[in-house]
């Protein structure tokens, strides 16, 4: 966790530096704003990682320890859903939404149906595992 945090924070600090140099030197707005927001994006992730690290009270995970055995990682790794049709449904909805941006109103209806249905299916499927 700590190394990942440093990596993200490093990227953020680097962009902040570039942003300050570029901003003062060029007086150009677009690039300065983009660099600033890029920096903010990385710092956001870095801060989240730092919070996670704090929550673990500084205890390294098995994947952060040089001498970890496979057995140290015993226990639940995560939930990995099996095949699911819903991502494809949302994807098709997304594509129709794109087409709607070109050809207009009617396609929004089709896109809406796919996305709405897909999101419901996706969520219900996610809840089903709790039982």
């Amino acid at each position, binding site marked *: 966790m700590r190394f990942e945090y440093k990596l993200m924070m490093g990227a953020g600090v680097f962009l902040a530096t570039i942003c300050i140099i570029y901003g003062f030197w060029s007086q150009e707005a677009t690039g300065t704003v983009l660099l600033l927001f890029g920096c903010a994006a990385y710092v956001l992730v870095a801060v989240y990682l730092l919070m996670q690290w704090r929550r673990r009270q500084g205890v390294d995970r098995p994947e952060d*320890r040089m001498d970890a055995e496979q057995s140290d990682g015993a226990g639940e790794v995560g939930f990995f859903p099996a095949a699911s049709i819903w*991502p*494809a449904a949302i994807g098709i909805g*997304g594509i129709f939404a794109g087409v709607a941006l070109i050809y207009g109103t009617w396609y929004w209806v089709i896109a809406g149906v796919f996305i709405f249905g897909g999101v419901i299916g996706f969520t219900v499927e996610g809840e089903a595992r709790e039982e």
Partner: protein
Amino acid sequence: MSATQERLAPPRAAGGYGPEPLLEIIPSPRPRGLVKFITSTDHKQIGLNYMVTAFAAFLVAGIMAELMRTQLIVPDNHFLVADTYNQLVTMHGTIMLFVFGGPFAFGLANYIVPLQIGAPDMAFPRFNNLSYWLYLGGFVVMMFGFLTNNGAADFGWFGYAPLTEAIHSPGPGADMWVVGIALTGFSGIFTAVNVITTVFTLRAPGMVMFRMPIFTWNQLVTMFLVLLAFPVLTAAMALLWCDRHLTTHFYAPSGGGQPILWQNLFWFFGHPEVYILALPYFGVVTEVISTMSKKPVFGYKGMVAATLSIGGLSMGVWAHHMYTTGAVLLPFFAALSLLIAVPTGIKFFNWIGTMWQGVITLSTSMLFCLGFLGLFLLGGITGVMLAEPPLDFQLHDTYFVIAHFHYVMIGATAFGAFAAIYYWFPKFTGRMLDERIGRISFAIIFIGVNLTFFPQHDLGLRGMQRRIFTYSSFEGWNFLNLLSSIGAYLIGIGTLFTVINLIMSVRQGRIAGDNPWDGQTLEWATSSPPPEHNFELLPPIRSERPLWDANHPDQLTEVGH
């Protein structure tokens, strides 16, 4: 049914990697055929989907390039009309960059990264599936442009304003380009989130960050760049759409807009994008060279540092595409652009260091990597030349830039992709590709690439502008263009050899076994193709090449160099 993956500590494995415990797999029923293609959340299936689609896109855009070269083979040619030529130029660039180069690397990331870090799957499997569909949708929508009245987008792959405004580029073709790129942009962002989360949270015990293979490192840094660059692109596309449909004037000077704003936004995406297309393939090359030389990567930490600094610097060089606008800070961008050659040089040094005194196997994948070293070096040197403003003012928008760019992109992206195909095909399918056909394919492509693009340096120096659809014979460009077109056909023929090889070997290739190349990293520790959730048992991870240590206990990797 879904499976909750658990790592258990079972008894000692018979014939395994010693006392290390197993990963127990709770199997779930697997759909087959088309249903599997559509619904699978397995990172390997999605990775293959990506790679097959991207390779198909490579062939489509390649055919466009052949048509363009056929138009330019002789002066005053009328093989294509000007408008069709413009559409082909635009779509060739767009597809190669957005639909082949990046997504093929995303496919590799999907397939290989979880295997290399000992993870059972990607962190968000369904999200992963969704990003594939958005990508495929983007490709299809873009291609549908050719079926509309005014044809596909025809303003060049970087779509400069105000040419992209509705009044100059009417019709849905241009909109399809906008929407298609936005969809692939979303897909890229999703993949980046997924890969970064996977690398941060799903590594096997003992796989600390500084033991990850260089390929995984490079993919991680690439995804950092994607996370920064793709949202900017998608936002730029959204603004362009508003300009075209909602009569806003972000880019249209007629309403007080700023065409330079588009250039800044596009290249703020566009330059990291070039490294998004290159870094994953640097990773591929590192893996192949290390495996085929039977040596660990020379200067592992230096390699990681070089990747990180390329990633960092690439965010500060975007306006070197815009020198001639007169609206950019020349010394800043020239300095950073020249600086980025340093970490790239470190990488070259380390690749050569890895081969030094190694036991080198000249497999097809290794040949493509050696070809990569040559081509990318040439492209890199012309890149340093173009980073200098005085020279760039002379050569901007000439064929010199085309030659530079194609040396970089074919050198890194295409050769890297071919190397990856020849290297990991046994893992994907359980069968070997035919090495003999592969070598012939490499030889033809390598000669073809040089024959196509080397003359273009000279064409650029003689003043041939990019994107012109024909030229007159008095310009003195005839012979060089003829050479260039012949080279383009050779690339096509060479690629055809690989396509035939792929089709034949999927069904009839020699059975590969788990570890045909005596690989060093974890993807070779499982069966070919890997089972669902990847590993039945993992070797202990004590260095950056755990499998080598398990297979060659007499030549353990030195730790801490």
